[in-house]
């Protein structure tokens, strides 16, 4: 079942893309996709944590005792999330304020812990890096596309640029929680239709 490194990377972009195929990380997906800027920011932050934690956990996979493995993974993941938080505070303060509590919540994002347990703990460093990068980029793409729909229909803007004229009546349902679910479902439906061919 050995896949090449490129295949490990590519699977995260379609076949095993969160949150659609790998049904993980739904909470931040629904919460931060009100605007494209937030979606991209969250995606990049999560990708950084995913890649770094995959690398470290893969490097240490023979050192971490099975009985305390989850505790060790969480320490590693939480460390990288805190680093991301501090860096965002120092360099992208307005985005940090907008994402708010969802940055520390990356620690409990099921994607990160899930890949650590399911992949990084059992594979060597280069495939783990590819896996983390692919799934992280896939996640970022999902967030961006979903946010594009929600922001365009719900606010009438894309990346804070007005799309339609003043006669546009915002479909505010899209930027509320129920709208997020509906949008997610429609996207999944589209993906299934495209996949069936």
């Amino acid at each position, binding site marked *: 079942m050995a896949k090449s490194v490129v295949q490990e990377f590519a699977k995260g972009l379609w076949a095993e893309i969160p949150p659609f195929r790998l049904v993980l990380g739904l909470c931040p997906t629904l919460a931060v996709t009100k605007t494209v800027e937030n979606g991209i920011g969250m995606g990049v932050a999560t990708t950084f944590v995913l890649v770094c934690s995959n690398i470290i956990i893969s490097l240490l996979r023979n050192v971490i005792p099975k009985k*305390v493995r989850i505790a*060790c993974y969480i320490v590693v993941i939480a460390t990288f999330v805190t680093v991301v938080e501090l860096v965002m*505070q120092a360099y992208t*303060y307005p985005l940090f304020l907008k994402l708010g509590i969802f940055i520390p919540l990356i620690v409990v994002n099921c994607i990160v812990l899930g890949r650590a347990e399911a992949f990084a703990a059992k594979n060597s460093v280069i495939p783990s890096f590819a896996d983390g990068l692919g799934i992280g980029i896939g996640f970022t793409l999902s967030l961006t596309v979903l946010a594009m729909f929600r922001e365009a229909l719900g606010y009438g803007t894309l990346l804070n640029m007005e799309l339609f004229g003043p006669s546009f009546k915002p479909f505010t349902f899209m930027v509320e929680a129920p709208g997020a679910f509906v949008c997610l479902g429609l996207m999944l439906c589209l993906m299934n239709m495209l996949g069936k061919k």
Partner: protein
Amino acid sequence: MREMFRLFIVITIFSAVSGGLLATVRNGTQEKIEYQQLKFVKGPTIKQIMEGCTNDPLVDRFKIMDGKMERNFFIGQFNGKKNTVAFESYGKGYGGDVGVIAAVNIETDEIVGVGVTTHSETPGVGSRAKTDPSFVSQFKGLSMKAPFKVRTDGGDIDAISGATFTSRGVCAAVTDLSQIYSRLKDKIIEQMG
């Protein structure tokens, strides 16, 4: 027994390395974060309480040593006179420290405005200390010498309903600010020329 020892050692090493790394990153980013907070969080509050000033208080700022602490003072210019100064302190709120900046007219010792900067209060309840102007506007015009307390503690400030701890925290912060003011007034006047 040996296994337990190994588990203990591994987790201890993990925590130690993690702690060390985080302390390093924190030190490395501390200055930048302070500047960003000044720019995005305190800046707007300072500009808001010194509405109508003809200069940039963030640019016209000076520091004074208060015991072991260094404090920032922001100057406000009104009608051509640099007669207002703003500075920050903290009071214990419900979820942690509430940061409060007060602007004082040094000629009349009167409060020109009060604003909340950082806080960890309950969103929608205690957070109203920052978002609801009617609460902090109570301090406007009061003398900087009075102790500041909520009505239930015998004072004159109406607390935000449902947010007594937060309101007390703001009052405690303004009280501390008045103490700082009386302590450092001479040095402030010296710096403002």
